[in-house]
């Protein structure tokens, strides 16, 4: 048995000594080939594929969006309702919305589909205005 074991060990060492460098060289070669040849080709193919997809599908997407917008515009009609009340206060002007809302209505039936309340509360500060009169002459003419 001892001889068989020595035989196998010797054979294994010999095979390893001869085969390992070859396997390493093969692996390195494949690696170089993938990196230098196949990698760029895969990258170029992917780029070309993406470009083709964008070229071919962009028109479809554009047509779809255009048709969708047209259909929505034909189907719905926005309407603003309400009042803005302007009130003069000390040193400024207050603008307050009263029932201001944006209604989205059906074009055909006029039914309200959605309604958005728009709160408005704006204050505009107005500084004092000075008017100076300097030697302003008032002359009257007789009408004959």
């Amino acid at each position, binding site marked *: 048995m001892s001889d068989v074991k020595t035989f196998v060990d010797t054979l294994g060492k010999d095979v390893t000594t001869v085969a390992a460098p070859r396997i390493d060289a093969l692996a390195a070669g494949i690696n170089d080939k993938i990196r230098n040849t196949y990698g760029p080709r895969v990258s170029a193919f992917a780029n070309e594929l993406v470009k083709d997809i964008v070229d071919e599908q962009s028109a479809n997407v554009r047509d779809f969006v255009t048709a969708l917008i047209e259909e929505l515009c034909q189907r719905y009609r*926005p*309407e*603003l*309702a*309400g*009042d*803005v*009340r*302007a*009130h*003069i*206060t*000390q*040193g*400024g*002007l207050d603008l307050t919305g*009263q029932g*201001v809302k944006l209604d989205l209505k059906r074009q055909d039936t006029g039914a309200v589909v959605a309604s958005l309340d728009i709160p408005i509360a704006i204050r505009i500060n*107005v500084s*004092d*205005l*000075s*008017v*100076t*009169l*300097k*030697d*302003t*002459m*008032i*002359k*009257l*003419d*007789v009408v004959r």
Partner: protein
Amino acid sequence: MSIVDDLVENLVERNAVKLNGALTISLVEGGLAVKGRLYSTLRDQKKGKDLLNVDIPVDAQVRVSDVVIPVPQIK
């Protein structure tokens, strides 16, 4: 032409009013306030002489009610 017409005509043609002063217009609760002082001088232009000086203090308030503005419609 009556004497009164002649008098008025002469007064109007000869005289002019000169105004000086300053006014401040400010916004107050519910309206506008005008404050200041005006100095008025009535001058005889033919004689080149001031006839009358008037000092006019101004302290006025104008009430302005709320203004309701309908929101614009979307066409």
